[in-house]
């Protein structure tokens, strides 16, 4: 029994150390990325705007169809659930307020973050992992091309710009989806629904959702890059770390969301 306990303690200890090691690595990557973004041009290692645009297209524009579908569906679901819940108190007429605050403060940024983690975070991990096992990262290094500047800074900038932009888009689509359901079932006009939504929302609510989405963007990038950089063992290793990056990124997003809500919303 003592042997089993010490084995368990050893495993927990190792996992904790590895976790701390990865957090430290992520912090270094973030610091180096910011360094190259600010000083890269002066040091003749600029972060290429074309590369940022390419990443922005892959992360942002290409994600719009699936994000639109998901957030529209969630908007409708929120409306159904909201009306059902408020009916208990006879307050269905206030459903637009509930939907607006839920979508803008919580659901849009969360769903967008989870989707981008699954779609672009995993792609980033897979791409870097494959580059690592094919010695492409070594090739960059020996060519005098700083890998963090070339591989990490562009997706970081693209994520920080595109995830909040996609979150804004999600606000609109989810509120539109919810609006369609509310107006068709509650006998109010779409204009009246929009007025209620606008009345319910303040600048603080918008900035709450957008600030969270910017934090999610940094988390998704760093988790993807760290997992990609830690790939070992060929194609199987790439698959393993890609899955790990999705799980870690979604966990990080949900936990950060909870901490954010705890700190700001109460």
């Amino acid at each position: 029994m003592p042997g089993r306990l010490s084995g368990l303690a050893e495993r927990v200890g190792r996992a904790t150390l590895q976790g701390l090691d990865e957090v430290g690595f992520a912090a270094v990557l973030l610091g180096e990325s910011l360094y190259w973004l600010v000083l890269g041009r002066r040091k003749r290692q600029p972060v290429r705007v074309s590369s940022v645009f390419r990443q922005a297209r892959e992360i942002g524009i290409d994600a719009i169809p699936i994000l639109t579908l998901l957030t529209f569906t969630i908007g409708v679901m929120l409306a159904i659930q909201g009306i059902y819940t408020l009916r208990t108190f006879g307050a269905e007429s206030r459903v637009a307020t509930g939907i607006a605050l839920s979508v803008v403060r919580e659901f849009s940024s969360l769903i967008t973050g989870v989707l981008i983690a699954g779609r672009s975070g995993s792609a980033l991990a897979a791409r870097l992992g494959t580059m690592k096992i094919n010695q492409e990262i070594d090739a960059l290094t020996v060519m005098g091309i700083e890998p963090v500047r070339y591989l990490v800074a562009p997706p970081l900038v693209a994520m920080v710009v595109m995830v909040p932009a996609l979150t804004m888009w999600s606000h609109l689509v989810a509120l539109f989806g919810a609006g369609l359901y509310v107006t068709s079932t509650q006998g109010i006009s779409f204009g009246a629904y929009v007025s209620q939504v606008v009345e319910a929302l303040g600048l603080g609510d918008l900035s709450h959702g957008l600030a969270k989405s910017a934090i999610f963007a940094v988390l998704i990038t760093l988790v993807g890059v760290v997992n990609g950089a830690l790939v070992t063992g060929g194609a199987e290793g790439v698959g393993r770390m890609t899955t790990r990056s999705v799980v870690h990124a979604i966990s990080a997003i949900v936990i950060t969301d909870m901490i954010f809500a705890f700190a700001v919303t109460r």
Partner: protein
Amino acid sequence: MSDPSSVAIEVAGLVSYYGQRQVLKGVDLSVRDGEIMVIMGSSGSGKSTLLNHLLGLLYPAKGVVRLLGQDINRLPALELLELRRRIGVAFQSGALFSSLTVAENIMLPLREHSDLDEKTMEIIARLKLEVVNLAGFGHLKPDELSGGMAKRAALARAIVMDPRLLFCDEPSAGLDPVVSSAIDELILRLRDAMRMTIVVVTHELESAFRIADRLCVLDQGEIIALGSKDEVRQSADERVQNLLNRRSREVTLDPDAYVRRLFGEE
């Protein structure tokens, strides 16, 4: 212009570990300007580790690595990046970027390190492709190339900045004798035409003796022979003779058996 009396690469007392295992046990080596030095040895002899130290991809436990007179492990990061612009590396796998075409791969160092316009970079890439006999293949993606073509494309990328030092990792490994011999001819031509100092790491005996000015034979992390082809052939060290005889016996005395063994039929 190369100067045969000066030293291009100097390694002194290099010690390296993988975990607890000592992989290099105090290696001393110098490569003269303009010569082709072939580092050879059987699997696990430490030749790839030595190459990684020469490229600055590993940090030694002890010892010094000087490229073009500069200690690469003590150079500030930005000066190391500058030094690397004068170094070309052709990796064993080619390490071509799969998302880029062959021509884009070759142009990448130019794009990152020069202010040349697109047209000029394309002309240089075309010229380098001609040097390695790949004219007309620039539009292909790396996965559309054969093994020999990928190695030649990697060589073209390695020489695009007209480096002073060229490192080739197993340039003829896994190729048929005709292609292998063509790669060897290409390396000789590059040295003669571009006056480069070239370090080749290989376990292919025939190729090593075809291209080397001097040979360095490694065994279990130690240099067991260093000198001209004749000096290495006449080495009294039993381990050197075992390495030389084993391969030549296999290939020349019973080529059929050697081929059968290669294909796993014995």
